[in-house]
Structure formats: C-alpha cells, structure tokens
C-alpha cells in the first residue's frame, strides 16, 4: 500500500546541501563546497584538509587524531573543523543519493 505523505527526500537533501555547503558558517562556503566535491571524487583541496576529506570519503574509520587536530589548527577552531568534517560527510552521502535516484528514475521511466 502506498503510504500517505511520503517524505520529500529531494527537498530535504537539497536543504541539507544548501545549508552545509552554501550557507554561512565559521568557514568559507567555497572551501566547504570544495571539500564536499573532494569527498565525492573531486580534485584535491587545500593541503591542510585534503587528507582528512579523502579519508572521510574512503574509510572514515581510519581517520586519525593528527588529521583532525591539523584541521582544527588550519580552520582556527573546533567549530570550523566540524564544518569541514560535516562538509566531507555530506559530499559523500549526497553523491550516493544523486547516483541512486538517477538510476531508479531511469529504470522506472524506461519503456517496457
């Protein structure tokens, strides 16, 4: 049975993307966007954050204390470093959302 009032995942994902990657924060939004792109397979970012962004994207369970400490030093505060970590995680998650829904739409809309 089709549930009533399904969640609008597209709108909720977009709201998250806009707030974390475009909104105001302790860090520059352009840096957050680049970190998110890096976590989705994009080009290297500022050396202070590149290792951490890539590690979060590929194997976050292997992130190290020195990687996070370096981000805190470079970003200037724990809150700013948190924004970098959140941006990388969001970049990796939204990549999966976009690729996932795109193949479902293609499969569901293809002529039988």
């Amino acid at each position: 049975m089709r549930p009533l009032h399904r969640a609008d995942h597209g709108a909720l994902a977009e709201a998250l993307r806009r707030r974390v990657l475009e909104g105001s924060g302790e860090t520059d939004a352009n840096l957050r966007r680049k970190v998110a792109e890096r976590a989705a397979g994009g080009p290297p970012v500022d050396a202070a954050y590149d290792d951490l962004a890539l590690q979060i994207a590929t194997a976050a369970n292997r992130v190290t204390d020195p990687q996070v400490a370096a981000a805190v030093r470079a970003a200037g505060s724990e809150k700013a470093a948190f924004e970098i970590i959140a941006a990388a995680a969001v970049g990796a998650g939204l990549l999966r959302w976009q690729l996932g829904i795109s193949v479902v739409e293609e499969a569901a809309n293809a002529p039988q």
Partner: protein
Amino acid sequence: MRLSEIDRGDGLANRLLIGFISMVSGMRLPDAARVAFYHKDFFGRPMGAWTHATMRGPSSWSVAERELMAMMVAKWNACAFCVGAHGAVAAKEMTRPTVAAALADYRAAAISERLKATLGFLEKLVLRPREVTPEDARAVLGAGVGAEALTDAIAVASVFSIVTRYADALAFAMPTEAEFDRAAAMLLKRGYAS
C-alpha cells in the same frame, strides 16, 4: 570524541541539557545526540530533518526494516558505533537473532525477499556508488519493490553514508550493549529530529 566542544556542548543551555539528559537517563548521553545539539543551525537541524523523515516518516518499509538498513550501511562502512546503535533499535521490533543473522549475512537471514533485494542494491551504492546501473535498480523493482520504496531505501543509505562518516571521523565513544539498548528505546520513541 575528538572535538571537546561537542563533548561538553556549545553554550550554557546545551551543557545543562546534556547534563540533565545524562542524569535522567542514568547513562552518558551518546555522542550522536551531542552532535545533534552542536552547531545546530548549521548541521543538526537540516540533518535531523532528513534523518527523521527517512527513518520515521511514512514509508512502505517498517521502522525496524529501515533501522536494519541503517545497521547494514554501518557494517559496510565499518562504523561500529552505528552498527550497535541501529542494530539495537531494529532488535526492539525484530528478534535479536534475526538482526544478528542479517549482520552476519543478510542473504541467508530470515528477512523478506524484497528487503534482501534492496540490501543488495544498497550494498553496491554504499561501497561502489559509481558502478550502480539502471539494471541494478530494475532487478530490485522486478523483485516486487516499488520505485518509491526503493527511493526511501536509497535515502536511508545516503543519510547513513553521512552519519557513519562523521561518527568515525569524530571518534564517537562506544556505549555498552546495555546503554545501546536503553538509547534504542529513546530513539524509537523520539526519533531523530533535533
């Protein structure tokens, strides 16, 4: 927890809240909740909104099935905290042996065929996202999963591809099994919106 400000809370109100909840619940407030309170306007609010809608909103998947999906995403991403947290919630409404069997090998577990087919798709999406194809999606649709149900499942995988990453990057402290069980009761009752 690698960021001490998240551990203690940013601002007096959050520090008091963390202390109060820990006291009332009789356990240290898990780091997942501390993150939800931290820098809330930037992250906790939009992340909590999508997570809550995905995990507790209307869907043809039960809450337990969605929690099981979250646990599996955590397994594929090697996030011990999220395996413990979401396995405990799933076990509230499925049996503990069923959850343990799915964790060991979901293809052999006593779960529905539509859930197995969906987990097969999610596993590839989580581990090798650029390799998923419309044929993969068609195989799930052919197993009796509707496009809306598959979309709901992709939302679970996407949300927990984010959660597992910040949980491990921040090094969430591991609760005991009893603490996970107690936190699971709260998550079932209150959900994820912050």
